[in-house]
């Protein structure tokens, strides 16, 4: 993916750039709002990562508003040290697609950036069924089958699996699951998400030979088609 990073802190910038490049992405960087805005409007990116507070008079929100004002729908992830829920809401209202608070784990940022990039490419036609490998989800009847065998899922488990399938091949973090599947924006101290994922695995993976859902250390989970690996 082609990614633009606008961030003034050199340590954070070089760290993120290095990480993104290692994950196989092409990264342009800017250390101030003016250059960032110039790059964002003149080049085509899959994802733009914007720091909210930037030197040079043009801050992240201004860049975002300018982009959206020009009907540029490039997914934008806001990066900020302002963790207040109101700040998050302001950022998302201005047209941001996701919001990550500093300090952050790189795995969290990468997972969210990849999820956003994928969304940018996703075809807009509404599908009625999803499938990965031998797993099929019927979105209308809420019917889940693996290798032709019906799997009974609770409504929440279905939504969890649907989210994993929609992001198949990508790492999804626990916070992403909490936000997107449960719509919660708090920080649980216990392992609530792990427990729900492990329950899902009991039903989706345990009775079968190959596992679809995998734990990614220090990051989260990934649902992968075992045959597509090779």
């Amino acid at each position: 993916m082609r990614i633009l990073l606008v961030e003034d802190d050199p340590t954070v910038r070089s760290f993120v750039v290095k990480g993104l490049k290692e994950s196989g992405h092409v990264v342009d960087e800017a250390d101030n709002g003016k250059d960032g805005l110039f790059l964002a409007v003149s080049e085509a990116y899959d994802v733009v990562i914007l720091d909210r507070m930037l030197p040079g008079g043009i801050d992240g929100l201004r860049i975002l508003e300018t982009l959206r004002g020009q009907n540029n729908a490039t997914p934008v992830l806001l990066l900020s040290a302002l963790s207040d829920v109101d700040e998050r809401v302001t950022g998302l209202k201005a047209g941001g697609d996701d919001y990550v608070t500093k300090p952050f784990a790189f795995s969290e940022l990468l997972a969210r950036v990849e999820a956003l990039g994928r969304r940018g490419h996703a075809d807009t036609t509404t599908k009625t069924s999803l499938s990965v490998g031998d797993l099929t989800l019927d979105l209308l009847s809420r019917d889940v089958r693996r290798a032709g065998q019906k799997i009974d899922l609770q409504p929440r488990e279905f939504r969890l699996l649907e989210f994993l399938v929609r992001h198949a091949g990508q790492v999804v973090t626990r916070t992403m699951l909490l936000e997107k599947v449960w719509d919660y924006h708090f920080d649980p101290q216990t392992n609530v998400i792990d427990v729900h994922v492990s329950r899902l695995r009991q039903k989706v993976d345990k009775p079968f030979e190959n596992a679809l859902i995998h734990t990614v250390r220090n990051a989260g989970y990934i649902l992968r088609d075992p045959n597509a690996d090779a």
Partner: protein
Amino acid sequence: MIARLLTRLRHLKRWPIRSAGGNFALAYGVVFLLSAGVFLSFTWWSTTNLLDRHVQAGIESDAQDLTRRWVFGGAGTLSDAIEERIEQNVDDDALYLLVDRNGQRFAGNLPGWPVVMTRLDHFYELSIRRYTFSTQAKLKAYALPGGFRLIVGHDVRGRHLLRHVMAETLIWCAIMVSLLALGGAFVIRKLFLRIVHSIARTTAAVASGDLNHRIALNGSETDLVAETVNTMLDRINRLMEGVRQVSNAIAHDLRTPIARARTQLEDAALHAQSDDELRDAIDLAVQDLDRITGIFEALLRIAQIEAGSRRSAFASVDLTALLHDMAELYEASAEEAGLTLHTQISTLPAIIGDRHMVQQALANLLDNAIKFSPSGSQLTLRAERLPNEESTKPTGVTISVSDQGPGMSASDMERAHERFFRAEAARSTPGSGLGLSLVQAIAGLHHGQLTLSHAHPGLTATLTLPLNTAPSSHKTQIVDPV
């Protein structure tokens, strides 16, 4: 001169006297002078009125009597009666004149018929000459049979004398009243200053850092101000206490994980034998730093919530659905920990609040309950409407989480909501000691409260949220969430 002063005054955009005491005094003086003036004018007016009526009544009855004499005895008798009256009139204030049809003076003590007296039945007040001086008189003319005409009158110079005396009294009164007004104004100003000084002294002492000063109450109206200021000072004191306590706690509780992270990194830098060992040490240090970030975030959140700045996100919250969702989320965690989560959630009215905050509060209570429960025990999430289940017009809701863990001693319960407080029994479990502080702050934000009680065995944490988010009384607003 006066006109110039007036225009000058009119050009002043603002009232020239800046001192509140001076203004009070001036207002007092003006009111005092005005009331004294009104009072004296009224006295003057009613006295002269009374005298006038008295004189007129005297003239009328005198004239009636004289007319009767005429009927009995004609001009001669009347003239005798007039002469007799003049003689007997010691004060020499009775005036009479009897003239015949030709206008010739027949009897009386008036020198001649005044030219202006052309009408009957009308009291004239004229200046007349008597002997050698001129005087003021009230006169009335009467027509008698045979072309005779009679004037009966009264010398009213006594009234002038009275007016003089009254005027003098008025001037003296004005002087006295002015002096009294000035004195009173001075006293009022002094009183005013004393009240202000007592408040100013206290606030100045507080401003210079001594928070223990309070304004003395003296039972007067200024107690209202004094009490409010005292309440405010109490709150400032508590907040300061909170800040002190928190900064101590931060210094202590953040130092530990920072020290640990530092030690791990330094140890790895000095002694790590392999890349893997180095990586593990760094991972551990990152985890410690994440914990520190978490603590900071929690502290910031509590501070924000307590400042009341988070009420912008208030909206109607469907508590029933929210509780069922939370129960579903935590039921799995409970099961994994070998616990059973029971729910008793009745249909609850919607409250006005911050959905995310209520979720956070519940998550903290459930996290705690799961953390402190021994395997195989029961958890209960209960929610009821207030004041009782049957009420059709509920005033609020209670949400409680009960566990069968070790519980808390009464003294621990009292301190449980303090930031960083951790009961002895909890020292060995992970946690920052901020969970209940956050719940408490969220309860405060919704004008509700958090109460802890014994569950025999275990602990029940009850969150009470009123439906009406406005503070139920002045008191609850002051109650300090720290």
